[in-house]
């Protein structure tokens, strides 16, 4: 049903969905941009953030504790994963990297299924963010409104680290030319480790922020991983601003299309990706030569 009210509602809905996609995708894209590793376990790490947060939330009842637990636990896991597994794959073919991260994601998902079963779990947002807020044309869940703000803050923090700190400068230099950074005497492998952990933290944080919106199941990361790839391809592989733009575009495409015909929401999303790949293969904001 196409009315102005519905159109505005869906526009806003797309923003909320897009903000979350942007946050998840930014982690994936900086890891790929810097390390050249396409991390297929990113969705599983998103899921683990949710479950770590759930464990903390059910133990303490505090959503802030859940946020901290989800972010730090997955950040730590990222660190361990990089040291124990990923670093041995930097020099190996792409398909090896895909297989090892895919394998890890299966292990993570099944380990969680073993501990928590397949039953859906819910995390309650803080009391102040419960309920529904009126936006004039529409009623919107208060927590989802907050998610837009939380994602914006987190993205700002990521931007700050990447574009306003020495570490960020090295990371960006690494994205452009890792060999050059290495020959300048900077220990590029230590930077890789930090980048992987930051990317993992972004996924974990997104996972726990998303937990009250969805109900947690071991597979919560799988569906989102596909969308995340689409976002990264649309925005430009390795581009942080591209992930944000791609996320918002994907969110709007899903929302606006489903207003006309929900069955075509995903079709349109993939059609948009195809179009981008045809017209601008490196993605909307992707740097030349990295596509």
């Amino acid at each position, binding site marked *: 049903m196409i009315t102005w009210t*519905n159109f505005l509602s869906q526009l806003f*809905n797309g923003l909320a969905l897009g903000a979350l996609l942007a946050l998840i995708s930014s982690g994936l894209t900086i890891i790929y941009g810097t390390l050249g590793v396409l991390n297929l376990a990113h969705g599983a790490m998103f899921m683990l953030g949710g479950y770590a947060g759930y464990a903390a939330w059910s133990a303490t009842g505090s959503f802030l504790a859940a946020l901290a637990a989800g972010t730090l636990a997955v950040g730590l896991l990222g660190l361990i994963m990089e040291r124990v597994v990923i670093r041995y794959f930097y020099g190996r073919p792409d398909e090896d990297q895909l297989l090892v991260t895919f394998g890890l994601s299966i292990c993570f998902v099944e380990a969680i299924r073993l501990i928590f079963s397949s039953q*859906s779990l819910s995390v309650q947002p803080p009391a102040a963010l419960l309920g529904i807020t009126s936006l004039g044309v529409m009623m919107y869940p208060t927590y989802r409104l907050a998610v837009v703000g939380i994602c914006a803050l987190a993205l700002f923090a990521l931007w700050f680290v990447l574009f306003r700190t020495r570490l960020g400068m090295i990371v960006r230099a690494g994205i452009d030319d890792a060999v050059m950074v290495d020959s300048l005497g900077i220990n590029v492998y230590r930077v890789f480790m930090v980048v992987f952990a930051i990317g993992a933290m972004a996924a974990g944080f997104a996972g726990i922020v998303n937990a009250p919106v969805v109900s947690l199941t071991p597979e919560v990361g799988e569906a989102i991983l596909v969308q995340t790839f689409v976002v990264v391809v649309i925005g430009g592989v390795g581009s942080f601003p591209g992930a944000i733009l791609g996320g918002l575009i994907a969110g709007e495409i*899903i929302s606006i299309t*489903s207003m006309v015909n929900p069955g075509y929401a995903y079709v349109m999303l993939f059609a948009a990706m195809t179009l981008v790949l045809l017209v601008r293969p490196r993605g909307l904001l992707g740097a030349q030569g990295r596509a």
Partner: protein
Amino acid sequence: MRDKKTNPLIPSRRDFIRIGAGAAGSAALPGFIGSAWAEDKPPIGTWPAGTQGDSVFIGISVPRTGTYALQGEDELKGYQLAIEHINAGHPLIKAISPKTTKGVLGKQLKHGVADSAAKPNDAVQAQQRFITENKAIMITGGTSSAVAVALNKLAQREKVIFVCGISGSNDTTGKDCVRYGVRQNFYGETAANAIGPALLKAYGKNRKAAFMTPDYTYGHTVTKSVNEFLTKNGGWTMVTNQVSPLGAPDYSSYLTNIANSGAEILVNVNWGHDAVLSTQQAKQFGLLPKMKLVIPYQIPFLAREVGPEITEGVYAATDFWWTMEDKYPLAKMFVEEFEKKFGYKPEWGAENAYMEFALWAEAVEHAGSFYPPDVIKSYESPRKLQSFVGEVSWRPEDHQLVRPVVIVKGKAKSAMRNKEDYWEVVEVVPGAGLMQKPDAFGCNLGSYT
């Protein structure tokens, strides 16, 4: 005798004839048996190869991952309990299949389990393996009608009996029915005919309903059946139908459309985790409890997962709910046995699984043979059968069990007698009056051989 004096190394003429006749006889024997089969029962499917040992094999494919994982796991528990009971000749099985002693026709049941992930291709590959490598004499699976329909076709092609798992589509024993497939749980159409009157009674005529439909055979057929009933008999209007892919990660855009549709009733046909997520998000968006929620085809564990705050007052059509133990002695036995083994009250997925196997055991014992055409004819010969919900019977024309539909209504948290007392049984609607004509959905069973 003269022969005795001849050289024993040189066979006599008599010996020659005797040995020769024996050799010819033994050579002729397999040929003789073979020709008897050729006239009467030629090998078909995995028969007789799969029945020659002291056990027979069953191929089970349930979703253990994906949107329907939780329901698949519950279904598997039902199968396991049934196999255990059949092999031991448990009194509960004997109540349904009186001729059962231990095992089926004296053979123990062995089984293999594969994860279908609710994907037709995965299920078909797994079952093809069970048929080829394990000579499975019966296969089962479902928890997605898309899988059920695919396995129907496999069963008919391979000539191996398919006892259908959870599947609510009208196609399973309708458009896509096969001679080699049978289904215990009811049509979406049957669910609509059962829950429709309850909805009209509770919510009145001329209401506006929004539907949420998963995008495959189950979703489309159930939505169509429920909508047609309510439109025709109650003057209801479908103001929007939000079709979503299986395993959608978010329902916000669908729910936004529904919020803007002016609907008073939300009919959620989604299933498994999709139902949990869409229902929870409907509450987050304030659609519930403003709109009345209706679940035309019950989802096991829904109430446990979304909580009684959401399911309170919600009508659903289901196969079984454990409080039926108060009225049905077999249900009581089943609930007790299941809870003893697995530590929780069974939901209808487990009940459906147990009943399927129990009724299969009954059909084989009644046939007195594993020979598939005989088993099929046994399913098709009309007789009253016992179940957890009273008397039931197979309908020969479409291989659908004619059985009651249970209408339940969600209890308020304060009214729950224990932590698993989510639903109140409102009505047990007898099956016969709910059934459409066997050929209403174009069922054509196909050949026996």
